[in-house]
């Protein structure tokens, strides 16, 4: 529901009154933004959102009766156009990605100046489905470069190569001069690391992850 006037209607959710007061003052200064409601818990927030139908929801992550990420998911499911800004004291890329995954429009740390929260709220109202966060690029980069893929030990790489070649466990064991049970353990560990349930899946995963040379001549 868009408001009839051009003012932006905001609901603040944070269990710390001083935080809400500070943000309300910052929003009030803008002139074209009105804080129409405040809530200090998920329950209050849900009823306020139902009642007030704001343009933007600004929510803390840690709340007494739940977390803002869950609230975001819940709100987003029923309302694809509401702007949602996640505000948090938690650090770490996980929080950024959790907010992104939940369908938030923006993510602001509580160390940032109030203006940043206001800017995020404006952005959220304008493009609720375009996620913005400070250092998002950095976080993405880190996620990409983090040792995300499964890390196989040298021995497991050897076993994997032989698995891809289609050797049976007994053959692998003989080839690598290890006992069959050891080979089985290695294979089980490889499956576990690759999230595979069987040999075919393991081979697929290994090829997809670039763990084996798939153009190897067989």
């Amino acid at each position: 529901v868009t408001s009839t006037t051009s003012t932006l209607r905001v609901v603040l959710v944070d269990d710390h009154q001083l935080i809400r007061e500070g943000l309300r003052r910052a929003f009030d200064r803008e002139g074209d933004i009105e804080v129409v409601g405040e809530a200090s818990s998920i329950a209050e927030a849900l009823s306020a959102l139902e009642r007030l139908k704001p343009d933007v929801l600004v929510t803390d992550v840690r709340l007494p009766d739940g977390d803002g990420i869950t609230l975001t998911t819940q709100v987003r499911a029923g309302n694809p156009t509401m702007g949602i800004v996640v505000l948090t004291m938690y650090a770490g890329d996980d929080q950024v990605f959790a907010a992104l995954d939940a369908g938030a429009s923006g993510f602001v740390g509580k160390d940032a100046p109030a203006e940043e929260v206001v800017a995020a709220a404006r952005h959220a109202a304008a493009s609720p489905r375009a996620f913005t966060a400070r250092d998002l690029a950095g976080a993405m980069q880190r996620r990409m470069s983090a040792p995300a893929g499964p890390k196989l030990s040298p021995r497991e790489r050897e076993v994997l190569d032989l698995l891809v070649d289609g050797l049976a466990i007994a053959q692998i064991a003989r080839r690598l001069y290890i006992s069959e049970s050891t080979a089985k353990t290695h294979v089980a560990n490889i499956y576990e690391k690759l999230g595979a349930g069987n040999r075919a899946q393991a081979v697929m995963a290994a090829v997809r992850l670039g763990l084996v040379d798939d153009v190897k001549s067989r």
Partner: protein
Amino acid sequence: MKRRPGVDRKSEPVGGNPTQRGVNPFTFDRPDRTIHQPGVSQVWQIVTVAMLGLRAKSVFVPLALRAGIIMIFTAAAVVLKSIATQTEGSSGFDGINKTHIVLPALLLLGVAALASLPIPAAVPPFIPALAETLTAAVIIGTQGKSGLLFLPYLTIPLFLAGLSSGLAAGLACALLAGATLAATVSSTGGPAAEALRSNDTLIAWLFIFVAVPTVGAWIRRIRSESAPDSEPAYTDAHRLLSELHVVARQLSLGLDPRTLAAALAEDIRAVVPQAVAVVLTRSPGGRFVALAGDEPEDEAEAAIEDAWLSAQPVKREGAGSYFAAIPVLMGERVVALVVVTTLSPLDETSLRRCRAVIEQSGPRLASAMLFDDVRRLATTDERMRLAREIHDGIAQDLASVGYALDDIRRDSDPQLARKVVAVREQLQAMVADLRMSIFDLRTGINDTVGLGTALSEHAQRTGGQSGLIVHASIDESPKRLPITVEVELLRIVQEAITNVRRHANAANLWLTVTVEPPRAHITVTDDGLGLKAGRPDSFGITGMRERARRIGAHLLVGPGPEGGTVVEVALGTDAAIAHEPRQLPRPVVTRSALTDPHGIPTIVPQTTRHGATPLADQEVTK
């Protein structure tokens, strides 16, 4: 002693005050209290219920017992009296007629009935016993010669006094009973006094009065020794924890599983000189990790698995060597394995000797491992609590002050606004720092996230969020270190990175991690200001040293090649290597291109350490 029926107990506050009860000397009838205590073993509850069932009936048992004795003596007196009158011989029953026998018997029955009633838990059990003794003594004493027939009745309360309250209370009761008896008999005078005055009788009864409570007290002692305590689980836990507390306080390493495991391996080598012994335990992820010694050959894996599952020693032959995996048992549970590798098969005698050694130190090792785990859990709990406290308290307050400053700035003239901005920036840095502290406190190691991953993620995030360029090089074996070791290493590196972030004013941070259980080697290098006297992170370094010492690692803090600082942790490597910095692996940046968020070619620390600058100017060993 009075038995209170089980239903009465419900009025007692549940849980009560176990400590107080534990020291209460009048807690003979303990077992039924356990029904109120949660966590007591099932078996014990069943036993308790069975005993309570008996006891519900046994409200009448004391009465029946007393009444029985009274009846027997009444009947005996009547029979003897008839015999005496018929034979006209002995005059022991002179002055007694049958009706005289009935009166004290009835009075004593009344006493017996009263004494059999349930008494409140708050009353010490010797009080009813004493009351019964004295009342019975008065009745017996005042009823003349026929009363004296019932003297044996006194043995019941006296015995119970000794049984319920110990020797002192029992003897006191006996003394008071004797005095009361003497006073009442002599005041009434007559044949009874004469009968009592006859030496034989007097001595005999004195002896009985002393002997009965003594026997009661003796039985009490035996029963209290053999009877399980009221809350066996808690009592055992308390005793164990007390011991642990003492040991943990006395020796900082006394309960360290790695030290104990190393000692155990040493003991095995003393028994089988040519053997290589490894102490393994199972990590939460199901992998076997070495507590002491090198990981055994892959060939031993089957033996290890079998020994763990069967809780029996398992011998296997490998290529050129022989393995014996012997479980370290704590009760029925396998807590660790000792793998003995030999060049010739281990003979039965040696195996028996090994088992004897292991049996001896098994409980100690198990306790140490348990203690380690308890400490880890407690620490994690406490860190989470701290994180919550900072998050909900000071951090929010500072953040709201920041918003207030933002507000003030908007109202200020440009000159004041500049000052406010400066303060605001400081505050922002403070809040950012608190956010990192909360992050640090919440970061942990678990079954799925190993040390290398945790370290790398932590370095990337902290670095990324504080403007440091992080170059991480992780070489991690799929084998895991014991989780407690991983946690300590993580905390050491966290502290090192925090120091760089806060104090070093560095642009780059190099993290190298090599984990090859049971060894690990980690360096944190920066190109910042380097160590200076009085740098405020000395407290942090002390903490790092303590952590390193706890896991038996070497910690070295020294000037880095780029003018910054190097923090180096070496676990399980030879002390000689740790002392020889030149032989340590360089922080080679293998993944710099990947990890540099700016895509700028990174400065690889040159291997300048062969030169004049020694790596370490400070060094800590175990």
